[in-house]
């Protein structure tokens, strides 16, 4: 199924988030914490977008 391809967003988002967090913190623990926080925000945004699309177009 095509929907499986969307799972590739997980490593992509994690990678981008961790590197972005790395440019803002020096401590590794902070990088990991912030990286997960940013990833979670992006995933939530994607989930809400998906729900809105589903509600509007039913797909």
């Amino acid at each position, binding site marked *: 199924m095509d929907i499986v*391809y969307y799972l*590739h967003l997980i*490593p*992509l988002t*994690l*990678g*981008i988030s*961790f*590197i*972005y967090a*790395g*440019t*803002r*913190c*020096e*401590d*590794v623990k902070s*990088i*990991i914490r912030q990286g997960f926080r940013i990833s979670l925000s992006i995933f939530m945004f994607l989930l809400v977008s998906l729900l809105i699309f589903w509600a509007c177009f039913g797909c």
Partner: protein
Amino acid sequence: MDDNNSTTNTTQTPVAQQPEIDLKNPFLAALLSFVLPGAGHFYQGRIGKGIVFCVCVLGLFIYGLVLSSGDVGWGRAMYWKWTPDDHRFYFLGQGCIGAPALPALIQSNRVKNGEAPLLHGFMAPPISSRYVVNNHGKLEYANLSADSLAEQNSKYNFTFHQIRKSLNKDFELGTLFTTIAGLLNLLVVFDAAGGIVIETEDKKKKAADKRQ
């Protein structure tokens, strides 16, 4: 008065106290980071951060290579080719990964000279269906069909359309992952050269004023 003084003093200080970072030679650190993600941080003694960057950037890059591997060879989404029929602009981003992109240049040179690509076509560029290697080892215009051309060349010499058809969406995903990994390495280079981004109260206030 005292209140005003105290606010002006706080505007100059960072929000969170960040540790002092010895960037050593920033240009050398940036160069090392460009060659290998995280190497500049290792040079500066920022080992933990170097490991995080190395794992994240190379992880994304290797993930992209694995996605674009299959019957047509390994890591086929990562290649360098600049011919009239194929301008690989993606390599400008992919190449920013540094040393890991070197095999693409080596393979490109081999295929251009009519030699068979090494290592299961690892990062080898696709051959053009409009060009063929002649008896003198040079490329010449042939206009052969893709199948006959692939037969007369090495096992891992495929045209772009053959690779794209075989890998399907994984080719696009592999291209996306390797390109983003290369571009993220630029952030790593800037971090090695300039240190972390520190938000001051001044900047925060300006951003808040802008929003209002």
